[in-house]
């Protein structure tokens, strides 16, 4: 059974999602229990998978027992198994949070569909990070892409539907280029398996340099739109702001990262680092990443809505990940892979904190949140931990990944390296500038007569947040295990 694990995780989540509407027909109350059970099981399987991959190396799985050039191949390598653990773990916590939260945020009739969508999107995300087949990747990308707007529009009010439609149009514009890129790669190599296509690209790249370059451009645009790389991020603030809080946590924490992993896999596996270095790809990505880091932080500065503020900070954080990848040194890629985990923890926790506050106060305006820290100390302390981790205070996990990306910038060398270091430092200061006012208002502002009361929110809302905050501190103090995995995965990507 252990050899079926890579495909089992995907299949049980997808099957579970298709079963949910039927379960809803029989007994509506069973849906949350069954989805939580399936997601927990998937998380246990992913952890076992990661252990095995660390111990014994990559697991190759041939679907239907057809060998690779013809059949679809699933490869559980370090990056894929590591992402699978993150995806299923955070989805599990989000589902726990959603148990009570969606009773306020989503209509009764639509609640069952929320679980269907969460199971579907998680299954597709795990499939996307594990697959080694280009067309299979495309199908998984499409499933994630269609679930995203649905998770936004499920709130079913005028703002959410508009944001969902905008998200859908942008993401549909992104899937066209991805399919075109795959068609071009298939045209010049005749393979859809990434390993075989990658070997063939090296043979034919001198014959068709322009086609290979065009495919690369298509991949960047397609995945860039979906991952909200800076100038293509326009759908992001509205979508994350108007979605229900669990959906925002899921989309911001996981969906955006998974596209980055998809892009990394396609580019590094197909072209290899040597070919990529000869094309202008890394320069373009670096410019867009730096612009995203600075502009995302600046746009977050004057936001009045707490969810919109957190959403804009996502644009900057995605910039960090792209910067780390495009510097393409050992340290920076390690930092980028680690930042995927760290940002997934921090950002989903912050959206869940926003969810608790909106659940209780029924407002998301920063100005009206004075003194909220005295009413909900646990929630706001966790929010503060997240904010400090985002700024990069030592002992918290955000510091480690920023440190590695900065080391990568120094390793990159020269004036440019120093400039990237400066960008990271400036952006950290900006992060502090827009998070601190919220914290100051929450703990020092407002009615000082109010005495400290324990958080009155239900335990299922508080528990996921506390677990994520504990994860942030633990990974800040003892980052060794994920760091080692990220370093090995980076080495594998860079082919050293």
């Amino acid at each position: 059974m252990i050899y079926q694990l890579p495909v089992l995780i995907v299949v049980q989540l997808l099957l579970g999602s298709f079963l949910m509407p039927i379960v809803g027909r029989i007994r509506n109350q069973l849906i949350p229990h069954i989805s939580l059970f399936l997601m927990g099981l998937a998380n246990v399987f992913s952890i076992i998978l990661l252990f095995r991959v660390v111990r014994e190396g990559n697991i190759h799985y041939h679907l239907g027992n057809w060998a690779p050039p013809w059949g679809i191949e699933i490869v559980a390598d370090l990056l894929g198994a590591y992402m699978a653990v993150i995806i299923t773990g955070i989805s599990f916590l989000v589902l726990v949070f959603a148990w009570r939260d969606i009773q306020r945020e989503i209509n009764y009739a639509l609640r069952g569909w929320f679980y269907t969508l969460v199971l579907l999107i998680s299954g597709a995300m795990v499939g996307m990070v594990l697959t080694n087949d280009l067309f299979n990747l495309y199908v998984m990308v499409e499933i994630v892409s269609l679930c995203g707007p649905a998770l936004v529009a499920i709130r079913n009010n005028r703002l959410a539907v508009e944001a969902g439609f905008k998200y859908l149009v942008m993401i549909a514009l992104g899937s066209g280029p991805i399919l075109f890129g795959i068609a071009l790669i298939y045209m010049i190599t005749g393979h859809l398996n990434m390993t075989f296509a990658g070997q063939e690209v090296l043979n034919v790249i001198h014959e068709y340099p322009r086609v290979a370059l065009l495919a690369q451009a298509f991949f960047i645009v397609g995945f860039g739109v979906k991952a909200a790389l800076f100038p293509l991020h326009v759908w992001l603030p509205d979508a994350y702001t108007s979605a229900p809080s669990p959906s925002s946590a899921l989309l911001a924490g996981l969906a955006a990262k998974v596209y980055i992993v998809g892009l990394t896999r396609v580019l590094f596996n197909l072209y290899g680092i040597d070919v990529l270095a000869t094309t202008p790809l890394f320069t373009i990505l670096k410019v867009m990443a730096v612009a995203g880091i600075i502009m995302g932080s600046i746009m977050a500065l004057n936001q009045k809505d707490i969810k919109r503020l957190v959403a804009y900070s996502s644009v900057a954080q995605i910039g960090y990940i792209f910067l780390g990848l495009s510097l393409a040194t050992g340290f920076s890629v390690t930092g980028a892979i680690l930042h995927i985990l760290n940002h997934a923890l921090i950002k989903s926790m912050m959206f869940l904190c926003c969810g608790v506050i909106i659940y209780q106060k029924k407002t998301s305006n920063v100005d009206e949140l004075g003194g909220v820290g005295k009413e909900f100390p646990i929630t706001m302390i966790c929010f503060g931990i997240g904010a400090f981790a985002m700024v990069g205070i030592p002992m918290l996990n955000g510091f480690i990944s920023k440190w590695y990306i900065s080391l990568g910038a120094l390793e990159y060398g020269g004036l440019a390296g120093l400039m990237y270091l400066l960008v990271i430092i400036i952006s950290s200061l900006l992060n502090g500038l827009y998070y601190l006012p919220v914290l100051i208002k929450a703990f020092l502002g407002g009615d000082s007569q109010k005495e400290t009361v324990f958080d009155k929110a239900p335990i299922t809302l508080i528990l996921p947040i506390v677990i994520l905050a504990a994860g942030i501190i633990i990974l800040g103090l003892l980052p060794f295990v994920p760091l080692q995995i990220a370093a090995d995965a980076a080495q594998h990507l860079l082919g050293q």
Partner: protein
Amino acid sequence: MAEALAALGQNYFFYYALILFMVGFYTTLSHSNILKKIIGINIMETSIFLFFVALGYVEGGQAPIMGRGAEGGPYMNPLPSALILTGIVVSVSITAFALALMVKLYHFYGTLDADEIVMLRGERQ
């Protein structure tokens, strides 16, 4: 020059697909009518299907079915057609979902013009 023209003539469907792709992309981005945006997405995706299917076409090739006389002779590559079948399903789902959201949008805002919807949304906030 003559060589380039000959290459163009041989691969005319590639260029045609690219032009169609850009037409679709431009339509989606430039029109403010929501229905036209959805039509633009469809044009864009159709152009890719055309491109992909054209890749597998072989002049005078047979359908690759055993026992139907295709053995020995040239036959068409069936893989792109099979893949595009999946692509069409994806495209149909995107279109259906977008149309459903369009109905909702009309219900909430009373218009199908994206610019007007942005204005109406700003007023209510």
